[in-house]
């Protein structure tokens, strides 16, 4: 909400500077997001009355304008403006003066005619265009009757001011008006002076009785459900003459940061902004039987709202109806059929208090956000404001010559009954705050806010003012104590808690451990958004991803079913900046949906492409490859003591023949392979990309308990063999034979070499194994190892026709 300092000063006297006000209001929970000070930057601008206009003798696009400057005499100017007529009250800057945009004004010749100054539009005056009507922004500014001819413009228009942008939390509906802010300023003053809150300090008119209240058949108001509408007042006006508001009213609106529209709209806006009380104008003659009934909607009822939209009303929606149909959605928006038009001669202004929840529900259900609904759902004052605003409005009607005021027609429920008092236990409050306040302290603090209280022993009986609809339970009163005492006047204390160890879930601990291992290997962790584009997921050949009903953008309309999309995006970003590779992982949730049931799983994604370590003089650049990726997975699994078994397996996003399923002893863990090139292209990756995705939950379930195993403390003996086998055989199949025939002393096998081509016969390949033998209880002899190797060699020959290429000690 935007409001100016001058409007606040008009509502209450106070000495705080704008800066002090910002700090002090912030201390009680009303945030001023920004302040903007304006001052008159023009010089020698006066209010003038047009006495006479004539065409320029030679320059036909110019007018000669004779001006009355009151006590300052008369003058004349040439102007190209077309909206200047005899009798207009307009601003003029005289020779020696300056406009707000910095133009110095001197006497100037137009042909044979001398011009003594310049007429001003809003721009030359540096006014806030947001707060002016479209007419006010066309050509020369018209001040209207009421501006004193001959006065300085800054005396006729509130120029020097400070605008505040007030941001209030949903519970501070009471601060959403000038009156509301003035009350909080009164609270600040009361606290500073250690005096109780005094509503009498508020300068805005707040009459508590309705003027000319009657209910004599001109208009009948009925409330069907008092719990949804505690009071309803219709202000009846006839002989309505519309038109723009007076100069004085418009400058008042300027201070309230309200843009003028028309007398009727301006009046309703003033009530809203100054008092926080929404009002609505009906065309009296368009109300069937001149009746207003506050009721809930019936099944099948519809309404055409002011914006021209036909809306079907959910049964039970709080509406204002005439004798036949709903004419407004209570507190949300009026209906078109009952709205004020150019032909309207009689008006009913509505001033009411509606249940915040009822308005909020209707506003949300219909998808209508209006200023009135915004206020109502945050809670308006069911007491003083409802009774004061009809008087204010009827005074305005007279002042602005809107029409002849007839009467206020009130429903039952006026005045609104006060809320019952609430009991506050002293010990409970102190026990909640960790404080040591006595009852008198609390009474004093409540007094600053206008909360009345009486003390009985250690109990306070408290009653809130009618505008504090937020005070309904004892902790809310505790908050007021804190607010008034000062949030930082309370001690800081560490709780007396039982000493114990904090714990985290095994899954969380595993995620931390995985990150540690992968970072140690040399991978960088990414964090990518969880959203993907549905069409991308479909094009990747993945099962449907959960869709958002209200995505922010079409690029993010689904939840990620894989970590690949985000990691690929991170890779693309880095490669596009000239990097030669990217090696990264991410641990996070992936999502799936089946039969409208959503599921999420913690997964680890690893993506490698290009070089992953730079070259320097000691080392060439390290390129990523499918075996770098497999090595990373093997290292991780080894670290976790999880066995690593691979089987060829097709995967949606990996190339055929370049994709394996990795399993532990008990379950599938994930897949790794070469990212399908068309998927890579879809994600913007042109080069070979290696991708693995693992279930962290499955990893967690696969981690075995670790116990000590006896190991050999004697020297081991190594034997290397290279064997020629059919190309169709895998290294793993050959190694299995080594394991089987090497006996229990064969401790470790390492593949040191694997190739085909060159000098080898076609259809054959060579695989080199390094075997390490050791005994747990003695030093092995070379000869006995040779025997073991011979038996391995023999088995290779008989089982797979392996031809021994060489052995090495």
């Amino acid at each position: 909400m935007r409001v100016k300092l001058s409007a606040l000063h008009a509502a209450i006297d106070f000495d705080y500077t704008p800066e002090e006000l910002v700090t002090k209001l912030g201390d009680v929970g009303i945030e001023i997001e920004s302040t903007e000070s304006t001052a008159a930057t023009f010089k020698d601008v006066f209010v003038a009355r047009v006495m006479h206009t004539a065409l320029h003798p030679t320059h036909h696009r110019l007018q000669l304008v004779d001006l009355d400057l009151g006590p300052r005499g008369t003058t004349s100017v040439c102007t190209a403006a077309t909206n200047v007529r005899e009798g207009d009250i307009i601003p003029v800057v005289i020779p020696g003066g300056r406009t707000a945009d910095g133009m110095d004004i001197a006497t100037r010749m137009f042909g044979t005619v001398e011009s003594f100054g310049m007429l001003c539009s809003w721009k030359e005056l540096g006014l806030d265009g947001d707060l002016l009507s479209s007419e006010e922004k066309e050509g020369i500014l018209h001040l209207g009757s009421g501006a004193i001819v001959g006065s300085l413009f800054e005396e006729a228009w509130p120029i020097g001011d400070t605008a505040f942008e007030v941001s209030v939390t949903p519970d501070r509906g009471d601060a959403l008006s000038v009156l509301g802010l003035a009350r909080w300023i009164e609270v600040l003053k009361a606290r500073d002076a250690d005096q109780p809150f005094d509503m009498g300090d508020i300068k805005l008119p707040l009459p508590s009785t309705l003027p000319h209240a009657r209910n004599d058949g001109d208009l009948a108001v009925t409330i069907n459900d008092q719990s949804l509408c505690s009071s309803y007042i219709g202000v009846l006006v006839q002989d309505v003459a519309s038109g723009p508001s007076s100069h004085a009213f418009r400058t008042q609106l300027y201070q309230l940061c309200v843009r003028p529209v028309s007398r009727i709209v301006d009046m309703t806006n003033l009530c809203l902004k100054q008092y926080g009380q929404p009002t609505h104008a009906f065309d009296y003659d368009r109300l069937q039987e001149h009746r207003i009934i506050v009721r809930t909607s019936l099944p099948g009822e519809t309404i055409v709202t002011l914006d021209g939209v036909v809306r079907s009303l959910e049964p039970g929606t709080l509406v204002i109806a005439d004798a036949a149909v709903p004419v407004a959605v209570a507190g949300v928006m009026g209906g078109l059929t009952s709205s004020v038009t150019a032909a309207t001669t009689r008006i009913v202004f509505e001033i009411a208090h509606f249940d915040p929840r009822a308005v909020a529900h209707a506003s949300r259900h219909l998808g209508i956000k209006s200023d009135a609904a915004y206020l109502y759902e945050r809670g308006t004052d069911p007491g003083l404001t409802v009774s004061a605003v009809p008087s204010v409005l009827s005074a305005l009607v007279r002042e602005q010559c809107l029409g002849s005021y007839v009467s206020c027609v009130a429903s039952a429920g006026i005045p609104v009954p006060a809320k019952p008092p609430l009991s506050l236990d002293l010990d409970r409050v102190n026990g909640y705050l960790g404080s040591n306040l006595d009852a008198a302290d609390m009474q004093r603090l409540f007094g600053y806010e206008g909360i009345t209280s009486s003390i009985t022993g250690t109990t306070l009986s408290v009653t809130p003012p009618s505008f504090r609809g937020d005070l309904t339970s004892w902790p809310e009163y505790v908050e007021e104590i804190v607010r008034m005492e000062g949030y930082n006047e309370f001690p800081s204390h560490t709780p007396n808690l039982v000493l114990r160890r904090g714990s985290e879930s095994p899954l969380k601990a595993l995620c931390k451990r995985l990150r540690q291992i992968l970072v140690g290997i040399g991978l960088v962790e990414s964090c990518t958004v969880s959203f993907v584009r549905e069409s991308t997921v479909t094009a990747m050949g993945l099962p449907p991803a959960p869709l958002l009903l209200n995505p922010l953008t079409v690029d993010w309309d689904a939840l990620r079913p894989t970590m690949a999309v985000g990691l690929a995006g991170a890779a693309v970003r880095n490669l596009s900046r000239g990097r030669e590779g990217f090696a990264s992982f991410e641990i996070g949730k992936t999502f799936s949906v089946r039969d409208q049931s959503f599921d999420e799983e913690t997964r680890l994604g690893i993506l490698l492409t290009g070089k992953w370590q730079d070259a320097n003089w000691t080392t060439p650049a390290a390129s990523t490859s499918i075996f770098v990726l497999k090595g990373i997975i093997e290292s991780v699994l080894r670290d976790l003591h999880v066995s690593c078994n691979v089987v060829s397996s097709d995967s949606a996003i990996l190339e055929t023949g370049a994709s394996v399923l990795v399993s532990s002893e008990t379950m599938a863990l994930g897949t790794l392979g070469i990212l399908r090139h068309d998927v890579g292209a879809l994600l913007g990756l042109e080069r070979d990309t290696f991708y693995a995705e693992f279930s962290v939950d499955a990893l967690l379930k696969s981690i075995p308990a670790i116990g000590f195993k006896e190991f050999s403390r004697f020297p081991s003996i190594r034997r290397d063999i290279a064997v020629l086998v059919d190309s169709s055989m895998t290294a793993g199949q050959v190694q299995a034979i080594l394991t089987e025939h090497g006996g229990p002393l064969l401790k470790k096998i390492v593949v040191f070499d694997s190739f085909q081509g060159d000098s080898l016969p076609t259809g054959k390949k060579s695989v080199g194994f390094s075997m390490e033998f050791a005994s747990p209880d003695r030093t092995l002899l070379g000869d006995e190892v040779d025997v073991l190797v011979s038996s391995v060699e023999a088995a290779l020959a008989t089982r797979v026709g392996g031809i021994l290429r060489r052995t090495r000690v």
Partner: protein
Amino acid sequence: MPSTIDEIRTALETRLTATRDAQDVRNAQIEYLGKKGTVTALLKQISGVAEDQRRQFGEQVNALKQWAAQAIEQKLSDLSSKAHRYDIDFSLPGQLMPAGKKHILTQVEEEVESVFLSMGFDIEEGPEIEQEYYNFEALNIPADHPARDMQDTFYLAPGMLLRTHTSPIQVRTMKRENPPIRMIATGRCYRRDAIDASHTPVFTQVEGLVVDKGITFADLKGVLQEFVRGVFGSSTNVKLLPSFFPFVEPGAETAISCPICGGKGCPTCKNSGWIEMGGSGMVHQNVLQEVGYDTSIYQGFAFGWGIERIAMIKYGIRDIRMFYDNDLDFLGQF
């Protein structure tokens, strides 16, 4: 044959000159003079050499053996006694090692978690796809309450949404366990906010909750004080400001003394010396009642802060989007 002897001698000489490693010298000793050593093999060949050359060959081999034994001994004694002067260009860079890095958000999250673990807080988790009930209703945010507007929400289906805060984990924990509760929850949250330098639709929160007998507003301040000192340094102070969050009452915005300027005023703290970090307050009665706690016995406090915000303040990062861009030039800095 003589060339072989010379070759062996040259090879050993080169090897001994090059090495500074005693183990390598001992390996050479075995390779040349051991049972299966090169020189030993030559000695065995002497008897098989033709009579006329045997004597000369024998002398040469024995000379080689003697020289090798002495050279090796000499080298070993050099290595153990004499300080050799190296001449290494240390301006050359070392061999590159793998340069892995945890994401800055992970680093900060783990740091925050370790502070709370050390104070005996459990770390709880919950689903990111959440029921509307846990995200809103159970936290005293009824369907038509304007507080819902504070958190613009992504929906997946009627009643199913992406959690807008980690607070549903409070509810789930309290429904599962009886007091005393001392927990934090960290995790990813989602809000349908337009993207700018301080908003991304995905962000990370840390949520804290303590419920027990006699937990007070003063305790809240004390715990937050410990927390910010653990994360931002021991001279950091906490200030509470009135604010509103539907699930706490009294509610407070928490500000810390600006760790960048130490409270003197700088652009980051907009010259106020204080930086707002997140919400906190005493757990609302409605929330405790909703999970079935007896509010006449138990009370507690809760707080919820953004991990991104903590990282931004701690490291002076100006744009929240950088966390999710994963630019290596950014990630490598922390």
